[in-house]
């Protein structure tokens, strides 16, 4: 039996990895909760955001943690525009169309990145990439601590938006009762786009948190997709606290599983868990209509 | 005594905290029209869904043709000769009227040509003969009700469960459909209809069951149940009494 201190270290590590998962899942679940679509372009948007963060640092010399304040609004606008002018008009409310449109976007974005930047993997070198805090029995990587803190900050801000602003009220109204909201004079297309924008902004924040310690290539974002989907389904489709807790839990599970089983089983494992979660959840939770 | 084609014994169905159907029993013999009436939200549609296998009852039994068929899936019950229509119509929206009815006809006729012939005959019987080539999604609400009826009939059922097929029809349309339903019973089918159009209930049905808040509160001949104070109260309580006699049907 490994010493408890090592396990604690693994859990702490998992929590910090899980923070980024949670952030990616947060965007996905937000979009699902309001628009009732699974955004298949989420991973590709994450790749795009990673490139944006990379070039912001490389060309403009913008530190990733500062780039958040530029990229989050930019990606919010991008997400808004995508939903308002591409996904919404193309899908016309049909679920199967939405599936195909977000898939098409995903393929387009990923391959446009490949076309523009080739398959090369790039990394940034920031001074604090390897900074860590010594707890005596383990080290906590500073960038990961920042991620953990940032995720709670983002969740708090989201909660503030939802609870206190008129926009938040409109979003909640549409999520709950679309027809009623429409009758009450809420511009549903606008609310959908706002939500998609918020979800995409989450992805941009995740990218800025990741880039100091992670890498970027045209399919880098895809690595997070199965994990994020698993978290969203596990945490309850559309549930923000579910995504937050689910992300942290999956992070810990992955870290412990890697510890006990070795990394190689990890990739298949996450897909198998994902399939299991989809299959064994009672069908009532999949309330999607035909 | 011969067992009626359909007998429902003490069926209950619960949606979460709501007991939508509460130990309801009813029966329907072949060759006759039985009505199920009751105020909105009484649990009539839910009871139909249980009988036709779309919902599993929390308690109780459904007997059909002398057998216990409780919990059998809808498609198997349809093969046994049970057909239902949906109150909220469910057309195959992308298909023509002909192809909609064809799906029903295929149940007893594997060959396409035979099934098409049946579909056309049935369409003519319910007055959809002129609309055979129309895409279902372009039909009026009244025409969709007829389509529900036509598809169900195309399966050549022994028991027909009609959920408000007259609702939303205007008086002249009702006058067209009522004889069709009467003829079905004449041909030996057991018909159970959920209906709000009281005149139709009075003129068509041999036996009436009244459901209120999930329970059968009265049963008997149309004259008998409409004279029952409990029934009048159930309706008045929900302000639906005005409906009685509002339509003039022959």
């Amino acid at each position: 039996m490994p010493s408890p201190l090592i396990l604690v270290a693994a859990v702490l590590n998992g929590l910090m990895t899980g923070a980024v998962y949670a952030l990616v899942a947060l965007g996905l679940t937000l979009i699902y909760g309001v628009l009732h679509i699974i955004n298949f372009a989420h991973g590709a948007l994450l790749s795009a955001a990673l490139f944006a963060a990379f070039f912001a640092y490389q060309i403009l010399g913008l530190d990733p943690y500062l780039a958040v304040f530029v990229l989050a609004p930019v990606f919010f606008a991008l997400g808004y525009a995508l939903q308002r002018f591409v996904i919404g008009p193309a899908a016309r409310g049909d679920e199967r169309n939405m599936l195909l449109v977000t898939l098409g976007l995903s393929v387009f974005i990923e391959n446009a990145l490949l076309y523009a930047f080739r398959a090369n993997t790039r990394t940034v070198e920031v001074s604090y990439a390897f900074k860590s805090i010594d707890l005596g029995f383990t080290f906590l990587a500073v960038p990961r601590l920042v991620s953990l803190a940032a995720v709670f900050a983002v969740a708090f801000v989201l909660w503030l938006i939802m609870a206190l602003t008129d926009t938040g009220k409109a979003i909640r109204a549409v999520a709950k009762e679309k027809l009623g909201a429409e009758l009450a004079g809420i511009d549903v297309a606008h609310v959908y786009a706002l939500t998609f924008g918020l979800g995409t902004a989450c992805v941009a924040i995740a990218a800025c948190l990741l880039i100091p310690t992670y890498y970027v290539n045209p399919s880098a974002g895809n690595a997070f997709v199965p994990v994020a989907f698993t978290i969203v389904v596990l945490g309850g489709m559309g549930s923000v606290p579910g995504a937050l807790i689910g992300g942290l839990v999956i992070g810990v599970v992955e870290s412990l599983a890697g510890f006990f089983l070795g990394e190689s089983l990890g990739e298949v494992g996450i897909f198998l868990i994902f399939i299991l979660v989809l299959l064994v959840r009672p069908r009532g939770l999949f309330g999607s209509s035909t | 005594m011969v067992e009626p084609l359909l007998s429902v014994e003490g069926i209950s169905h619960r949606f979460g905290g709501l007991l939508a159907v509460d130990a309801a029993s009813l029966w329907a013999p072949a060759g006759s029209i039985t009505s199920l009436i009751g105020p909105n939200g009484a649990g009539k549609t839910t009871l139909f869904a249980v009988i036709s296998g779309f919902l599993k009852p929390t308690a109780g039994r459904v007997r059909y043709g002398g057998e216990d068929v409780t919990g059998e899936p809808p498609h198997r019950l349809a093969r046994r000769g049970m057909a239902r229509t949906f109150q909220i119509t469910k057309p195959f929206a992308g298909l023509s009227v002909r192809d909609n009815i064809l799906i029903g006809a295929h149940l007893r006729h594997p060959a396409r040509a035979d099934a098409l012939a049946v579909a056309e005959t049935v369409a003519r019987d319910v007055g959809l003969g002129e609309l055979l080539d129309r895409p279902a999604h372009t039909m009026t609400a009244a025409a969709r009700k007829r389509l529900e009826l036509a598809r169900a009939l195309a399966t050549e059922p022994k028991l027909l469960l009609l959920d408000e097929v007259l609702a939303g029809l205007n008086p002249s349309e009702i006058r067209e459909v009522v004889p069709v339903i009467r003829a079905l019973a004449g041909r030996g089918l057991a018909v159970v209809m959920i209906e709000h159009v009281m005149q139709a209930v009075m003129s068509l049905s041999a036996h009436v069951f009244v459901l209120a808040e999930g329970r059968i509160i009265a049963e008997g001949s149309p004259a008998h149940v409409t004279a029952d104070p409990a029934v009048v109260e159930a309706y008045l309580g929900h302000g639906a009494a005005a409906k009685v006699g509002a339509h003039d049907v022959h």
Partner: protein
Amino acid sequence: MKGFLLIAIVVAAFAAVPLVVHSNVTLNFLVVALLIALAGQGWNVLGGYGGQYSFGHAAFFGTGAYVTAVLQMRYGVNAWIGFAAGIAAGSAVGAIVGTLAFRAGLRSSYFALVTLAFAEVLRILASVAPITGAGVGMLIKLDLRAQSFQFQSRALFYLVILALVAVALVTAQMLERSRFGAWLIAVRENEDAAMALGVDAFSIKLGAMVLSAAITAAAGGFYAQYFLFVDAGIAYGTWISIEALLTPVIGGVGTVFGPLVGALAAKSLGEGAKLVTGDVPGLDLMIYGAMLVLVIRFVPHGIVGAFADVSDRIKRRVLAARAPAREAVHG
């Protein structure tokens, strides 16, 4: 009957191509287009007629390809038998995935997700398992004899894939005329209504999935024989899942000729772009992604569907002109 006649004419026209075209480049283009059309016809059976959109048809394509290759190279099985076994194995994978997914009641997005996940699991497994050649992939030994399912001339390969496509076209046409097909379409349009009319939705969907998987697996097996190489990224890669659904969507979902028309359109556009900018990685898939979005936005029923819509509208206008009184009563 009209449908079968049209298939015969189209197939005959395609069969005549090698008589006039001798360019290997052109024939190669046509072989690949027909291969994608075949994979797409598989997707079309389940997605187009059945309304169950799979994002993981690579699972069947890859199984067809790997089983064909592995049986030959590891067990010395005859290529044609390996090909047949590949189709059987692909169908079996379809039966397993279908049983699990449909029993669990997965629909639309969830069905897409679960099929995608199965394909990914198979891809990862194939990239580590020794029997598939793991990360290196697997070469099929060159043996240019018809009994080894390899041909000296590209024209023969072309005729073989054309024959497979012809079988798939006839299958789709028969589907449209059969009770099974009618019930499958009914399930797509409204599952509850179909069940009320006696349709066993689960069995129908499962049957469609198995047929669909078999057709796409045949495309995979042919791929292995034509290119004599498979690896995990090719056989189980997302590219084939995407092209399998792209072709019917572009050509017209739930139509007999949709996948063929869509494959020719998509491949032409992809190759055309390569001529303009050179073969840069990502270019063709980038175009396919854009096509997917644009087609759904502007040609929602696909190319074949658009023609059908126009001819329907004309027919209806003619009918309306002939009998204005009747329309007025029921309109």
